[in-house]
């Protein structure tokens, strides 16, 4: 029983993400269309897109087809594993399997899969994309790490179920560090989900999708799927860390609360993406550096119990 429950839970979470991620993507596209005075694609279009891509011929291309295939698998697998570590309206199913640090590693792995994809393609454009992705990764990762650390310090534990439950607000005094980190994460969230203004590493008009340029068919479907799932999983992490309100209510109210909050986040992401131009990599890095400085201040605050 003890063994089966996390297993089923993990599968349930992964399944839920796989099932709903295209729907969120569809909603995002529809919303974008409305902002742009367009009719937009049907809500379910992303499902069909994925099906179509999955049904296409599996072409091996680029410098290293083996790495290319592996990168596609890795990216989706990582996101789904993360899904099992994050509460999706319920407690995270793989609670006992790891702690908050594992979560940070998984995030890195996501970026690594993009790097591998770009390196496997071996074209100049994808290499430029890789270098941008790498720079973004180096700047972004500490932000999330600090957010998790702040939670861990306040909760006095790295255990997932304690960190990912609004732990940042657990300080005895007014949670200054939490408020600061909330702002920092809000300002950098677009970058985590690779949306405008921070979709720098695959900017279509500059790099022609950068690392993904050699991808097609089923492998591209996996990558696209991973990107869609990322939006959900990251939103889940964000909500669990910073907006836990209502999670201790009875089922199904807590469940509905959770998804309502995720939806709000997706709308926010869409809104920002639709009203901004893309930053250049140096501008983005400067921006991240600023946020990082603020985040460190928050970490210090947290360690003094604020």
């Amino acid at each position, binding site marked *: 029983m003890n063994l089966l429950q996390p297993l089923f839970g993990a599968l349930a979470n992964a399944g839920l993400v796989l099932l709903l991620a295209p729907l969120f993507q569809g909603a995002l596209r529809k919303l*974008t269309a409305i*902002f*742009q*005075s*367009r*009719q937009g694609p049907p809500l379910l279009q992303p499902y069909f897109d994925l099906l179509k891509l999955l049904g296409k011929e599996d072409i091996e291309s680029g410098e290293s087809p083996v790495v290319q295939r592996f990168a596609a698998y890795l990216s989706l697998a990582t996101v789904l594993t993360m899904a099992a570590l994050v509460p999706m309206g319920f407690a995270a199913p793989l609670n006992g399997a790891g702690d908050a640090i594992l979560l940070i590693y998984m995030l890195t792995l996501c970026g690594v899969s993009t790097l591998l994809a770009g390196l496997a393609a071996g074209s*100049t*454009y994808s290499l*430029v994309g890789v*270098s941008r992705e790498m720079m973004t990764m180096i700047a972004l990762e500490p932000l999330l790490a600090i957010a998790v650390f702040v939670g861990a310090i306040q909760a006095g534990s790295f255990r997932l179920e304690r960190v990912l439950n609004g732990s940042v607000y657990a300080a005895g005094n007014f949670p200054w560090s939490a408020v600061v980190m909330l702002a920092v994460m809000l300002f950098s969230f677009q970058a985590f989900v690779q949306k*405008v*203004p921070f*979709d*720098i590493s695959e*900017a*279509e*008009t*500059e790099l*022609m999708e950068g690392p993904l340029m050699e991808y097609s068919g089923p492998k591209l479907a996996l990558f696209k799927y991973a990107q869609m799932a990322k939006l959900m999983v990251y939103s889940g992490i964000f909500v669990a860390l910073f907006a836990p309100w209502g999670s201790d209510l009875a089922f199904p109210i807590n469940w509905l609360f959770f998804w309502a909050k995720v939806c709000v986040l997706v709308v926010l992401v869409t809104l920002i993406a*639709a*009203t*901004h*131009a*893309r*930053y*250049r*990599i*140096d*501008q983005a890095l400067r921006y991240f550096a600023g946020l990082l400085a603020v985040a460190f201040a928050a970490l210090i605050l947290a360690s003094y119990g604020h």
Partner: protein
Amino acid sequence: MIAREKLSLLKAKFGDAIQRADMPDENRLFVFVEATVLKRICAYIFAEMDARYVISIGADDRPFSGQFLVAHDFAFDHDHLLCSVLAYLAAENPKVDSISEVVPAASWAEREMRDLVGIEPVGHGYLKRLVLPDGWPKDVHPLRKDVLWNEVPEGFDENREFTFDEPPEGCTVVPFGPFHPTLDEPAHFRLYVEGERVRGCEYRGFMAHRGIEKLAESVLNYNDIPVMAERICGICGCVHSVAYVQSVENAAGIRPPPRAEYVRTVLLELERLHSHLLWVGLACHVVGFDTLFMQSFRIREPVMWIAEKITGNRKTYGLCVVGGVRRDITPELGAELRQVLDKLEAEWRAVAEAVLQDRNIRKRTEGVGIANKTLVKQAGLVGPVARAAGVEMDCRRDHPYAAYNRVQFDVITAQGADVWSRVEVRLREVFESINIIRQCLQKMPDGSLKLEIRNEIPSGRIGLSSVEAPRGESHHFVITGENNRPRRWRVRAPTYQNLQGVPAMIKDQQLADMTITLGSIDPCFSCTDRLETIELKSGAAKVWSHSELFNLVRRSR
């Protein structure tokens, strides 16, 4: 008279080297000089008299004068004068001193002259082929009169690849084009990149050279050409057809009736409107701001519809003939046009405000792709690129044509010399265009639409015309000829000069700024739209008719 003044200045300086001068009217000056002093005269006109370089033309004049002809066109913008300096060259091995050393902007034109007419610019610093592919045989020059328009010379190697220059040390080569999402037309830039910085580039273009000038000189007649001139560009087609007919009218000394001039003005401004709206949208798309891209295209659409109502076509209006126009703007159409303009003005005001106050776009475009006054002068940059550098230059005011001398408008300039300033200039010019069309509708006199031209257009005359296209000056040079067609017709689109400024504009910039910098000069993309669907199973092809496409596209209206 200003033309006479300029001529006496030249005569005082160069004396007997000036063989002949023609001044058909007060705004044109043709100076025939000895080839040996050509370089010195051009240097004097360009540097001392501060004229703007326009274009150089080479012509095979052997059947008529037994010689080759070379012409360098200059514009005195403040004095409303277009000036051409011409020299005859020997029929055997034509050579002329290159002026690109003293007038850097002439570099491409001289390379083109060498390719197409076979006139060797002596002393040119970079004599690589510009127009002809590397596989083209060495001694065949397509624009010579003894080469047929459809001739494929012996020894033409279609599959020969371009030979490229060596990149500088420490740089990697990033190929940009011929196919790239933001480059809708084949042009190839080899960027020399160090990290994320562009250190230099090599350009290979002219991959879709269509030989339009040759066709005009050998197959078509005077009134066929406007229709083809229109197809030079998918966006500023009307500009080219107007510029062509005006240059012929200029050569023949005819003037179209006033109503025709107003109609031309209205259509030219409509074209500017849809072009500016399109460009602002595309610029936003390039920097990833798709919402504004979609909105400007939505706002633009009614302009296309009213153009279709007036001319029968969204684009390629088929408007001009030598001596007039073929379409009228009836009072009903005028009223509808006014409504379109009112709506457009209100909507564009909102967009302009949104863009001009947007810090995000500003951050992305400010200080990017700098083309300062010096570069404008040296590379001969035109249009919004020049105006954004604070150079007050606009052919509509400087070399008035059609009805532009009867309407009031401001020449919009900015001081930043960067992409942001170009955005600013084009955003604001939209309101000027709206204003001009309104004035035209109000002032348009009644009368006929075209002159009846009974006499044949005399041959051997030269005509110049500069028209302010949305992206800068379009300059046409015509030598009239026999058989109801010109002997030589040279088209210089604004991008021809502006592209030559791009290497300087992208040097030491971020790679990410390449697309928006190139986009900011609005390189001229030509294309022809036609939709054909093929049933995969049966292989049956179906060409969609106009009405079917129409219904498909406008279903939601």
